[in-house]
């Protein structure tokens, strides 16, 4: 079957202006690819977690108890809807890991059956073996990797009676409960150098703790069809006599909750950012097709006069959008699939997810394809609609030459008239073809703002880290104590060689309440004239607590309070009374959920003793084993967090975000490049008649090229100037997707970034002049003139 001539015309027209069509197709393909790449890897990541939970029998309910007989697990198993139950001991103990240093670190020890796999919360052994005999331990893989603890090494833990138990590392393992390792809700960013998860045989730990046949943690797997809430209540009542503590389901299981938070932000970005791309790309298609329809008014008239109906003409011009859409969306699907696979593999290698799924998700591919096609068709709809409205009799009258006009500014500024023609003509053209000026400026603005949005992620992250570690956290190490210590210990620490300064910090879990609501958080009591932990306003001014509280912007919003208001503060310790404190100021806190007060205020909340719970220490030079052991020698020191470790750890934690952002930036740059290139090329191509005519009059190529360049640069500068604030506004909008209660990043774009984006856009614009000038040079004058005649 032969294709209809109107369809053939579409292909021929596209071939004739192939570079313009290729350029817009690239733009759409990039939009589709970034959607599939980011959303596809989001879906892969989510299903990798799900698969891991599935394969490793992740629990559905967790119950902490003070002390219960191991037999409660069998009782739980008898409950209708419970598939499996597992009782174990979970304790935090100081453990010495020689690979890290002499001093103990804090370890979360979780028991597993020595002779068998657990029925709930199994582990995947990634290196070495599962327990084969007594005296063995499995290390959580992230911890082992971070600290380079090989299989075969030893760790030492102290039992309650003071005896030292030496355990051999028999393997590294990943646990579904610790895909994201955090000490507690209050202490999320715990570097693996001072906190780690270890799995020991129950038969090993229970006797050491004097807890034979006892458990303090029960986890259950449930039949998916049952009411988890009801079972949770039933089990809670059953466990009440054993000192029931926290009860968690998956939604509140810490690791899962944090992953979910991460995934949610990722998902929003993976949707919204591509939408921005597609919107910008459909504007590019719209521009192209709109100009096509304008330039084909005569042809449309002829077709209508021949008897093509309005609908046929409309479909004809929609056809251009359809062809671009199909080609571009297909290319985008292929590219996006490759990106999703690469990204998934990349993060699979640095996240400790044992089961990675990289399967093509046909739903995502189909949505990406449909989105690309729809964007193209929507973009084609308006030009197509306009084409169908063309009145044939009018369309076929010879086009009136554009009205020659003096520019208004020429009247206002007469000296402009004396400008040389090579400058004056381009300025007049800009004035005379406002829609072209608008499109060009718009293309530049879109390119610049896309780059700025992507770059703002990196700048904001950089600024947050800088704020946290360059200004707020002014200490080099934080020594955590197993029990509160007298503040006089700070003087002792001051005396250690190389220590410059030591300050006491008292951390108190508190509940803040107002009429508007309540919020549980951690209060940090700071020494009155201390300098190691500083607090700043969002504007960057130093804040110091008087007798009241400094709260973060996040908490202020949550509770609806302002500076000067008062809050009820209650320490979450038995018997503590609520006191009313004034809000002394509102602080910007990029990481974590904390509030601040003076040390004495914090002490008053917990009974008025002059105590601290951690020491902040600054020292000269790098941390050394000698310094470390002197700090551990302080009475009651439990673990040390070095600021440099936390900083490294944060970069690692955020690597997914950073990789994703990097990819976005590359795409933003590519898209910006394509759009600017596109606009400039179209500008030149659509004027081939005008240019050919000028050449037949004898205008030299050099002169034409300079005029074109001046014209485009002036329009481009207008676009760049508009694009900078647009980019900032868009960055503000996008920030909401990665900000949450735990990570409150200020939105910043560095001056340097503005400069690079603007300069880059202008360079692309100048590069785009190269094909334009070549095009002018190669213009087939006779052919163009002949077509003018028709």
């Amino acid at each position: 079957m032969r294709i209809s001539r109107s369809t053939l015309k579409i292909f021929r027209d596209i071939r004739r202006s192939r570079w313009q069509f290729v350029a817009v197709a690239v733009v759409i393909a990039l939009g589709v690819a970034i959607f599939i790449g980011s959303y596809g890897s989001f879906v892969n990541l989510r299903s990798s977690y799900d698969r891991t939970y599935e394969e490793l029998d992740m629990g559905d309910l967790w119950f902490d108890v003070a002390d219960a007989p191991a037999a409660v697990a069998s009782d739980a198993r008898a409950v209708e809807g419970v598939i499996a139950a597992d009782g174990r001991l979970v304790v935090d103990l100081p453990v010495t890991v020689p690979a890290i240093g002499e001093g103990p670190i804090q370890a979360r020890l979780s028991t597993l059956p020595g002779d068998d796999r657990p029925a709930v919360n199994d582990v995947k052994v990634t290196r070495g073996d599962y327990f084969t005999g007594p005296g063995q331990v499995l290390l959580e893989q992230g911890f082992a990797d971070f600290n380079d603890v090989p299989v075969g090494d030893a760790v030492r833990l102290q039992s309650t009676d003071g005896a030292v138990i030496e355990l051999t590392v028999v393997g590294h393992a990943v646990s579904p409960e610790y895909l994201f390792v955090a000490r507690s809700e209050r202490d999320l960013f715990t570097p693996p150098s001072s906190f780690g998860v270890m799995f020991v045989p129950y038969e090993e730990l229970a006797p050491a703790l004097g807890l034979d046949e006892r458990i303090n943690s029960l986890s259950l797997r449930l039949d998916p069809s049952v009411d988890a809430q009801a079972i949770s209540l039933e089990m809670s009542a059953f466990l009440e006599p054993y000192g029931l503590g926290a009860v968690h389901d998956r939604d509140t299981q810490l690791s899962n909750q944090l992953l979910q938070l991460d995934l949610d932000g990722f998902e929003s970005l993976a949707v919204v950012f591509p939408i921005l791309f597609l919107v910008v790309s459909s504007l590019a298609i719209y521009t192209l097709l709109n100009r096509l329809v304008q330039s084909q008014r005569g042809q449309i008239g002829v077709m209508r006069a021949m008897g093509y109906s309005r609908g046929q003409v409309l479909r004809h011009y929609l056809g251009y959008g359809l062809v671009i859409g199909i080609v571009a969306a297909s290319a985008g699907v292929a590219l996006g699939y490759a990106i999703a696979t690469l990204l998934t593999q990349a993060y699979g290698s640095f996240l400790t997810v044992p089961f990675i799924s990289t399967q093509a998700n046909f739903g995502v591919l189909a949505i990406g394809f449909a989105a690309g096609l729809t964007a193209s068709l929507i973009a084609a709809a308006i030009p197509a609609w306009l084409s169908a409205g063309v009145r044939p009799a009018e369309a076929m009258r010879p086009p009136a030459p554009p009205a020659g006009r003096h520019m208004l500014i020429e009247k206002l500024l007469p000296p402009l008239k004396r400008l040389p023609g090579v400058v004056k003509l381009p300025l007049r053209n800009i004035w005379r073809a406002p829609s072209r000026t608008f499109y060009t400026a718009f293309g530049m603005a879109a390119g610049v703002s896309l780059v700025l949005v992507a770059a703002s992620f990196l700048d904001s992250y950089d600024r947050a880290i800088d704020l946290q570690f360059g200004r707020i956290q002014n200490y080099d190490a934080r020594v955590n104590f197993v029990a509160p210590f007298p503040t006089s210990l700070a003087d002792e620490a001051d005396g250690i060689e190389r220590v410059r300064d030591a300050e006491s910090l008292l951390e108190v879990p508190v509940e803040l309440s107002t009429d508007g609501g309540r919020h549980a958080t951690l209060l940090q009591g700071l020494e009155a004239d201390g300098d190691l932990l500083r607090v700043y306003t969002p504007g960057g001014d130093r804040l110091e607590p008087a007798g009241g509280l400094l709260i973060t912007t996040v908490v202020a919003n949550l509770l609806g309070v302002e500076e000067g208001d008062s809050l009820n503060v209650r320490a979450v310790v038995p018997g503590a009374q609520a006191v009313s404190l004034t809000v002394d100021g509102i602080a910007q806190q990029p990481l974590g959920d904390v509030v601040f007060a003076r040390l004495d205020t914090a002490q008053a909340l917990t009974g008025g003793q002059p105590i601290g719970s951690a020491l902040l220490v600054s020292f000269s030079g790098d941390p050394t084993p000698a310094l470390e052991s002197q700090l551990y020698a302080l009475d009651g020191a439990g673990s040390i967090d070095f600021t440099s470790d936390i900083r490294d750890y944060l970069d690692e934690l955020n690597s997914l975000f950073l990789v994703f952002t990097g990819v976005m930036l590359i795409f933003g740059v590519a898209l910006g490049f394509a759009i600017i290139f596109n606009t400039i090329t179209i500008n030149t191509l659509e004027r081939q008649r005008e240019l050919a005519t000028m050449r037949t009059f004898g205008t030299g190529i050099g002169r034409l090229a300079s005029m074109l360049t001046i014209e485009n640069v002036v329009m481009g500068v207008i676009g760049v100037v508009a694009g900078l604030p647009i980019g900032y506004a868009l960055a503000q909008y996008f920030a909401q997707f990665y900000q949450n209660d735990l990570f409150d990043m200020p939105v910043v774009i560095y001056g340097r970034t503005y400069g690079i984006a603007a300069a880059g856009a202008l360079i692309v614009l100048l590069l785009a002049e190269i094909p334009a000038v070549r095009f002018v040079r190669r213009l087939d004058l006779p052919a163009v003139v002949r077509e003018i005649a028709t």
Partner: protein
Amino acid sequence: MTDLAASPEGPALAAGRKVLVRLEGVSKIYGAGATELRALDGASLDVYRGEFIVVLGPSGSGKTTLLNLLGGIDTPSEGRIVVGGSDIGRFSDGQLTEYRRRSVGFVFQFFNLIPTLTAVENVELASDLLKEHREPRAVLEEVGLGDRLDHFPSELSGGEQQRVAVARALVTDPPLVLCDEPTGNLDEETGKKVLGVMRELGRKRDKTFILVTHNSVIGEMADRVVRLRDGRVASITVNETPAEPEEINW
């Protein structure tokens, strides 16, 4: 020649011939008030099946406007244009499309061809619209372009392009063919050839041709010559014995 301006139907002509299109006091008005311009001003004319009409008149006298109205690509401001009993001035867009598709062939003064389609493809663009149509290549051969079928418009001379346009108008075999300056770019010989093709088709297939031209000599081969002046039908001249195209002196 007889001047029939007073009685446009002319008894001799009216006898035994069917009216294809009847214009009754048709006006086309552009603008309003002071800038009002009557491109056509109360024109009346009967067009018979199978006749060959040449329309003459100075530039701006309304010739193209008249053709556009007859061809259904423009609508009159006043008056009626009756085809087969209905007033096409009251046609919906769909009806007009159907009318243009089946009943009219157009050769335009400007904007002839689609630049990205070859000669034969340009003709096929029109024939695509109808199931029943003439063979595009054959029609192109008739107008003397058998060896230019696969050339693009930019590879054809002005006259060749004009002939492609003529072939495109004829390929759907319409009863009414409207030509705006079809010979304007042609040399004498080719011009005569194209006119000969039209004349013959008109006779053989009983087609009506209305041809606008500035070349008054072409009037010699017409059945009737309509002269326009300021949008009015100034005169209608009947040619009892039209000349053959090859006999006229360009």
